[in-house]
């Protein structure tokens, strides 16, 4: 698993290097847009972390050049430009995700994992999802725990679906919010926790193994133990 980090700040570069290595990724570093673009075209990376404001060649130009050259490597843009318009610009140029600086490492790791995994299994489309004895039918919107049908509100259904689609992965609160509500900002309250707590109350039935676990400081994970 090889990741390219294109970032001009030496501190952040070293920090990302160390953090990603600890997670078991191989890391290449570039400190400006030109070097970044060169490396990205030369090698096949699983993922590129791309800063936007870079010397020599800015991040968005690197990205568009890369896409024009036919490279479909997932790109996660890291930027201090946090307005929705900037985000839209970044995604339109071919970015796969956009994370605003300063970010939480946990958030970054969660998103990296999702991007790499998404790339691997993007062809697989099923109308049913299952984790242990929890089933959901994406067409009829029905949810069963074992034989018991569970009634969910539309937003609760979306929440559960996202968690189950990414079963085994840690999902951060802001990822959940973006996926379910589709607005891009940080509500900065425990509101997502409250929603997950409600969902948990409905899904975790007595006599069944708990499936939805809280990962402290990071988010939630749907997991079959």
């Amino acid at each position, binding site marked *: 698993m090889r990741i390219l980090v294109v970032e001009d*700040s030496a*501190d*952040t570069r070293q*920090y990302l290097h*160390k*953090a990603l290595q*600890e997670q078991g990724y191989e890391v290449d570093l570039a400190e400006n847009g030109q070097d970044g673009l060169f490396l990205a075209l030369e090698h096949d990376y699983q993922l590129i972390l791309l800063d936007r404001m870079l010397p020599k060649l800015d991040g968005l130009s690197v990205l568009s050049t890369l896409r024009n050259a036919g490279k479909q490597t997932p790109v996660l843009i890291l930027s*201090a430009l*946090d*307005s*929705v*318009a900037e985000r*839209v610009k970044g995604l339109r140029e071919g970015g796969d995700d956009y994370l605003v*600086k*300063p*970010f*939480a*490492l*946990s958030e970054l790791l969660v998103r990296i994992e999702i991007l790499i995994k998404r790339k691997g299994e993007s062809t697989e489309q099923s109308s049913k999802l299952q984790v242990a004895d929890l089933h959901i039918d994406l067409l009829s919107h029905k949810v069963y725990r074992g034989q018991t049908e569970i009634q969910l*509100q539309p*937003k609760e259904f979306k929440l559960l679906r996202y968690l189950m689609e990414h079963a085994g992965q840690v999902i951060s609160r802001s990822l959940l919010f973006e996926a379910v*509500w589709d*607005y*891009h*900002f*940080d*509500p*900065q*309250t425990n*509101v997502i926790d*409250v*929603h997950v*707590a*409600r969902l948990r109350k409905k899904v975790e039935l007595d006599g069944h193994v708990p499936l939805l676990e809280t990962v402290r*400081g990071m988010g939630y994970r749907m997991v079959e133990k």
Partner: protein
Amino acid sequence: MVMFRYLKPSAAWVTEWWKNSSQASSVWRLTRLYTSLLLLVVGILLVVLYQLSVGQISRNQNAQMNHLALQQKLLAEELNQTDFIRQFELQAGSSRQYILSLITTDNMYGQLNSVPKNIGICPETARFPVWLDKYDEIRLISGCSQSIEAGVLVIATDDESLYDLQRQFISASLIALLLALLLGITTGLIFSHRVLKRINTFNSIAQRVEGGEMTARVPVSSKADEYDHMALHINTMLSRLEDSFHAIAGVTDAIAHDLRTPLGHLRQQIEQGLIDAHKSGSDTQNLEQMLNKLDAILFTFKAMLELTRLEQKQQSSSFKVIDLQVIINDAADLILPIIEDNQQYLTVNDKAGCMVTGDATLLFRAVYNLLENASKYAGKHAQINVEISGHGFIISDSGPGIPDNEKDKVFQRLYRVEESRSIAGFGIGLPLVRAIIRLHDAQISLQDNHPGLKVVVNFNTAE
């Protein structure tokens, strides 16, 4: 005098018109002032002129008649009846200007053949009709009566020509006043319109600057008059304002870059420490607290920067047509569990739809922020209502509300209502909401819900 009889109804009409048009723009106010001054001056001139001409003649005439009457009275006292009557007939026969008559108990002498009714006693004069042989017709003459030893003396003068003069004077005066009125209104309108046109330019420029267009400037003409001086001063002021605006923006950008980056690095280090501590199994509580506090700082910081940016921003071309109903229902969905946990009630009345042009994420944040505030401050068992009207939405709650004198202040940065200090918050939510609402060319106002708070947001919808 006679003129006042004409002036009275017209004065009443003028005051009526004055009252009705007092709400009109200052063009009318200035014109009215100018016109009434002009009319006043012309009026005074006419009155003086009247007194000096027609008035003077009429006064002289009256004085003469009184003089004559007095003379006859004295003569009647001095002379015996026969001598007096002879003298009188002589006098009456010789006087061309005055018509004299004497009515005794048994006879009448002089030019009149009957005693006029309703005649005043000298020096009061009155007009009355008589048949005059001289003209062979009935004429209106003015005169008075005086009782003397021998009987009643009637003294009169034919002032038909003076009356004609008076009438002509009055009609000429009315025409003059009418002309003055027309002149006053036209010149007043022209001049005040010119003046106001320039003032309106100032106004429209001020409005544009208010709307965030900092580069707008007042045009300066080559006349170099007071208005041009004012325009120059205002332009200089605007330039200064624009400079400081950019300076503030520059400072915030600098803060954004210079302060956020090290804070970000600090966050990275704490997070790294947290991961290391997790691995080694040591206590992480301290580090987690630090991280939470740092996140709170970063959040406030981000919100402040965002606020500054939103306040400086102008309507963006990226705005799209958005259904307010969707935004409000999404926000209500998000807040609902919190409201239920606080044992409050939320109802959304979205029967009337409302389409607005804007940024969905920003509007969502504004609505969510308002709902969050309502839930935070309204207290247990509060009822929170959201209603979509054709022009916007209203969020009301049954909580304690906000005192009137604080309603404006809550929109200020970092302001917090005294009673709410115990509740966690930064005093940045409402300013942010207002910045978003203003960015959408909409208005937000806080009203009393009796009891509670009512937040009314109105968009300038297209229909």
